[in-house]
């Protein structure tokens, strides 16, 4: 314990030093880090930063932000007519190919996050429900992919005269997707699909170990087809929130908060697992069955996040490295701050809290990973790491909402926190700490609030409707015995001795 106190003081000094450095940087208006301030598009500023360090290769540095370049071969026939101007030189063709390649790699990394979610949730819940968790994470991606193709993509990216949600591009064709994004086309579509799946799969963790499988299928269909795409249309699809200047680069709000608030609605509607709260109000721990598996999942998520954030540039330019750095720093700071705080509170370095701290840092940095400075990223991550512990305890002990893996704290709370922090830390001159005034901060607050209202109200209506019709929760007998046997007719570990862990 004494060692931990010393470490705590050291870490506090370290973060204090970084804060001082940050204050100095903010006073200078972020000029040092972000290049010439008069260049308003942030990518330009960030590129400037890398040019100073001569890290950027000439090919990328010459790039213009315009998307009106060639569409890939094969689709050129239908798409070329839609592009306002076509450059025929080899350079732009190479660039389009590179952009497609990078965004596809990022897409595959984001897909890999699905594995991360599956392992985190399975590891942090009991062995008797492992098959059920696995099935939920596999099948919500499958259902979500189909629903997003049929309805979701159109609702999100087909904004027309109706400002509420998109009204065209349902069952998109090649012509449609290249109209939405002339350069990336289907790459863009797939990238959006995996983002949608990420949002959908967050909820399964909070509702783990007691939800009816069929009810979960209905939920994952609705979020992929309606809840996520409509909110996405408001922010990324050219809707009113986006036009206000709401900045959510890779989805702290759009993906994580929406999923997280839905998780809150779901977990609250379901009620706690049997044995979580005693009749006298005592809170019981229900330990997960495989901490290594949970840790593996967290590291998979960290890895996948290098596609989630840097891939959201939708182009190959020098800012992808910058974004990867801010992403990594926030995760690292989240891990350290959560570990130290948990050690101070509990006297031991708690593994699950540390792992949650990593995720908290990652979720929080997602909104502003392109506009905050590396110092800002560290501070955001460190604060998120502390916030997630407070939030986990608050939800567990005060609200008495049973969230087996901490999805609500990690995704809803830290996502909202990160979105607001972007209004404070944005180093492009709009953030409050950089003298940008409160306007941007208020827009960020509004966006985060709208996500809360939208997802929570839609979530409560949806889960109540499911509860009243097909039923949301399995029977007590089935829950005690484990969902694996009752819902799926098998056990995850038939050759292992698992049954005294109740």
């Amino acid at each position, binding site marked *: 314990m004494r060692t931990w106190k010393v470490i705590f003081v050291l870490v506090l000094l370290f973060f204090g030093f970084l804060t001082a450095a940050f204050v100095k940087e903010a006073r200078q208006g972020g000029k040092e880090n972000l290049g010439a301030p008069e260049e308003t598009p942030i990518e330009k500023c960030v590129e400037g930063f890398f040019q100073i360090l001569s890290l950027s290769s000439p090919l990328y540095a010459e790039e213009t932000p315009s998307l009106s370049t060639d569409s890939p071969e094969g689709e050129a026939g239908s798409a070329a007519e839609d592009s306002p101007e076509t450059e025929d030189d080899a350079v732009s063709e190479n660039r389009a190919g590179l952009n497609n390649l990078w965004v596809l790699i990022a897409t595959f990394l984001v897909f890999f996050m699905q594995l991360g979610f599956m392992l985190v949730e399975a590891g942090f819940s009991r062995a008797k429900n492992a098959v059920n968790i696995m099935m939920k994470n596999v099948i919500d991606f499958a259902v979500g992919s189909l629903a997003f193709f049929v309805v979701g993509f159109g609702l999100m990216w087909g904004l027309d005269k109706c400002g509420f949600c998109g009204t065209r591009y349902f069952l998109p064709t090649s012509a449609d997707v290249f109209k939405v994004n002339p350069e990336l086309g289907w790459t863009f579509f797939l990238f959006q699909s995996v983002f949608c799946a990420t949002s959908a799969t967050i909820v399964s963790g909070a509702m783990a170990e007691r939800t009816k499988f069929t009810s979960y299928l209905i939920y994952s269909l609705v979020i992929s087809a309606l809840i996520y795409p409509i909110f996405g249309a408001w922010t990324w699809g050219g809707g009113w929130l986006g036009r206000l200047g709401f900045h959510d680069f890779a989805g702290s709000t759009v993906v994580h908060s929406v999923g997280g608030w839905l998780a809150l609605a779901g977990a609250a509607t379901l009620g706690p697992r049997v044995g979580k709260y005693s009749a006298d109000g005592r809170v019981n721990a229900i330990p997960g069955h495989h901490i290594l598996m949970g840790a593996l999942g967290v590291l998979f998520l960290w890895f996948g996040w290098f596609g989630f954030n840097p891939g959201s540039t939708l182009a190959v330019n020098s800012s992808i490295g910058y974004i990867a750095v801010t992403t990594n720093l926030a995760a690292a700071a989240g891990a350290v701050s959560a570990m130290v705080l948990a050690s101070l509170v509990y006297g031991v370095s708690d593994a699950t809290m540390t792992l949650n701290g990593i995720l908290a840092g990652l979720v929080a940095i997602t909104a502003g990973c392109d506009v905050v400075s590396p110092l800002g990223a560290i501070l955001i991550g460190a604060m998120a790491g502390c916030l997630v512990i407070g939030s986990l305890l608050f939800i567990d002990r005060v609200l008495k909402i049973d969230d087996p893996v901490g999805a609500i704290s990690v995704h809803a709370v830290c996502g909202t926190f990160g979105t607001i922090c972007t209004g404070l830390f944005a180093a492009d001159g709009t953030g409050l700490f950089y003298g940008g005034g409160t306007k941007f901060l208020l827009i960020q607050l509004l966006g985060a609030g709208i996500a809360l209202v939208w997802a929570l109200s839609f979530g409560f209506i949806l889960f109540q409707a499911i509860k009243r019709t097909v039923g949301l929760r399995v029977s007590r007998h089935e829950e005690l015995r484990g969902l694996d046997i009752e819902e799926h007719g*098998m056990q995850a570990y038939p050759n292992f001795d698992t049954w005294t862990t109740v």
Partner: protein
Amino acid sequence: MKLIIAYIQPESLNDVKQALLKENIAKLSVVNALGCGHQLGYTEQYRGVVSEVNLLKKVRLEIAVNDDYLEKTLDVLIETARTGHIGDGKIFVVDLLDCIRIRTGERGKEAIG
């Protein structure tokens, strides 16, 4: 002195343990067990092949008690492990010849309590 051997459903273990503690019966052993009784089995399915599972997972409790604690312990066990469904389990009570606490060498009544 009696030895109580009880086979109960794994999911009721936590409740049973808490209730026994409340009655000051804190010394027990728990062993995983497989068994079959009147409950019959259930079917499992693995890659389309259905298999009957006849041996079910149970938990075996072993509690050594002095005679004056016997009825109290049995009451707690019955009360907390009973759901009213087939498969709740069985309790066996056998006479205990002796009991020795290894650390002190105490025997009999003192060693149990």
